[in-house]
């Protein structure tokens, strides 16, 4: 039993160190990821001004009940960016591993590939926390003030929200390696998640059927919860029903993602698709 735990931790550590080194040896992306939400917020402000005139931001704040449009939008665009990157990144990473010839080699080790691919959540979480902290903390410090409990709650929600994204990304990865170019499917999933998660607006402005759909999207709950903490200053958000729903959805999406990917692996061992790229 002890040996199993050690082997498990060793594999998780190996994946974590490898991924972090690969990320950090391309360092310029960090600045890009931190800056992008600001650019998206600026873009929305510009579009809003053109459509709604000089009162656009004021109207937005009245309609959403927020007093901090900038923070509202930054939270949404940061989460939008992280969800987009993670959903696409796992598929892209696996394709890159196939091209490099490293993908198949994982199947020659005694470590379960389900563990290897799931362990990638940790480095992704670290990267996401670094970028979201780099984006939000300066604005929080300058506007609402820094509350350690709120920040801890935000990070906890973020980590939990990454788990289902990883599940979705495993499904996308299976589609990517199965059909080689499933970009149409990927873009549809991404667009659906983007529209129904309320990254840039409150979910209640959506049509009813989309609001129902958004209940099944962990990103929608993560956005609402993090906004409730950081923008609307609600305390002890972990007792909110959305938090329980997020935890359940996280596990469900991860299990479904691993099942779909596992089925693809079985299929690939029959057809030789593990090494075809």
């Amino acid at each position: 039993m002890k040996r199993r735990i050690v082997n498990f931790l060793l594999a998780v550590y190996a994946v974590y160190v490898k991924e972090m080194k690969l990320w950090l040896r391309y360092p310029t992306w960090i600045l890009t990821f931190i800056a992008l939400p600001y650019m998206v917020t600026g873009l929305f402000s510009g579009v809003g001004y053109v459509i709604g005139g000089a009162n656009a931001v004021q109207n937005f704040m009245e309609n959403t009940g927020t007093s901090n449009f900038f923070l509202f939008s930054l939270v949404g665009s940061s989460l939008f960016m992280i969800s987009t990157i993670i959903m696409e990144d796992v598929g892209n990473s696996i394709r890159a591993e196939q091209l490099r010839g490293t993908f198949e080699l994982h199947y020659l080790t005694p470590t379960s590939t389900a563990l290897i691919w799931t362990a990638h959540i940790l480095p992704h979480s670290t990267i996401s926390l670094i970028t979201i902290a780099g984006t939000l903390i300066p604005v929080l410090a300058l506007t609402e003030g820094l509350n350690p409990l709120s920040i801890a709650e935000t990070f906890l929600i973020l980590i939990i929200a990454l788990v289902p994204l990883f599940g979705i990304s495993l499904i996308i990865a299976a589609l990517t390696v199965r059909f080689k170019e499933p970009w149409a499917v990927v873009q549809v999933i991404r667009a659906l998640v983007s529209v129904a998660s309320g990254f840039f607006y409150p979910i209640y402005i959506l049509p009813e059927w989309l609001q129902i759909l958004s209940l099944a999207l962990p990103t929608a709950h993560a956005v609402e919860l993090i906004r409730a903490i950081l923008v609307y200053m609600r305390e002890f958000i972990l007792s909110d029903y959305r938090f329980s729903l997020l935890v359940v959805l996280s596990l469900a999406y991860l299990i479904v993602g691993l099942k779909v990917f596992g089925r693809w692996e079985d299929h690939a061992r029959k057809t030789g698709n593990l090494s075809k790229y």
Partner: protein
Amino acid sequence: MRNEVIVAEGLTKIFRTKERKGFLKRGKVKEIVAVDHISFKVYRGEVFGFLGPNGAGKTTTVKLLTTLLLPDEGEAWVNGYHIVKEAGKVRKTIGVSLYSDRGFYWKLTGRENLRYYAYLHHIPPKDAEKRIEKLLRLVELDKDADRLVEEYSTGMKSRLNIARALLNEPETLFLDEPTIGLDPASARRIREIVRSFADDGGTVFLTTHNMEEADQLCDRIAIINKGKIVALGTPGELKEMVQSKQVLEVEAVGVKNGLAARLRDKVDVSYATVTIVDPVALKAKIRIGFDGRNEAALPAVLEVLVREGVKVQHIRLLEPSLEDVFISLTGKSFHEEENR
């Protein structure tokens, strides 16, 4: 009784592919029999060569035996474990090198790459460091261990690949074309490592289409063509099959299409193959095997070449090699697509 390390019984792999016609229309499903009911045994301490041209089924066989592919028919055991029912146990006892210069994270150093795979092989950190150091010395990469792999030459990557395959101290080593594209010094070093691994009691299953390598390195060789084993034996036993033959190798320019067929038609030769060396200058190597007792064959061959307008540059008589074994068994050379 010899200790059987690999046992394959009727191993078969069929790939299914859809033909494409026009823009949208898909044709019928085509079946490609990559490995066709092959059976063989490999014994402990042996370097067993799988020799065949590109597309013969060598890599597919390696992937079946190393659990990366599931067979459609047949069974196999590696180190006593069933390749389908006990895949996990097979993986623990084998080392595999599938590509000579691929399979690394380019933004990690050689040492970091080995460390990553060592941990996935459940080797504790302290043991991993010692083993990595020892292997880096073995493959002569200890001085370059902390450089990024993207800076490595092809030969260095190949040697790193061998080091990775040896990380888990395997009982059996599978090497797929380990010296392909390497300079002579790197290829020699890899052959030395392979030989020494077998001399220490390990078993090596090696695929190659380099006949000299197979001849020098392997204790026994299976010749595979179109998914079937066409001959199996020691290099000496295989060469005995063509011992009575004489082999003539001609280097010439101005070689026209169909020369090999015309030679076979007009002269009593066992086989004739033409391999293009320079397609622009129509330069080619012509290899002709004939019965050593047939004294008329040599002048008759030269007569045909002169009549064909071929300009002979070099001509020499050779000892029959494994290539001649392959040609005499299959009627074609290893470089079929280049034949005329």
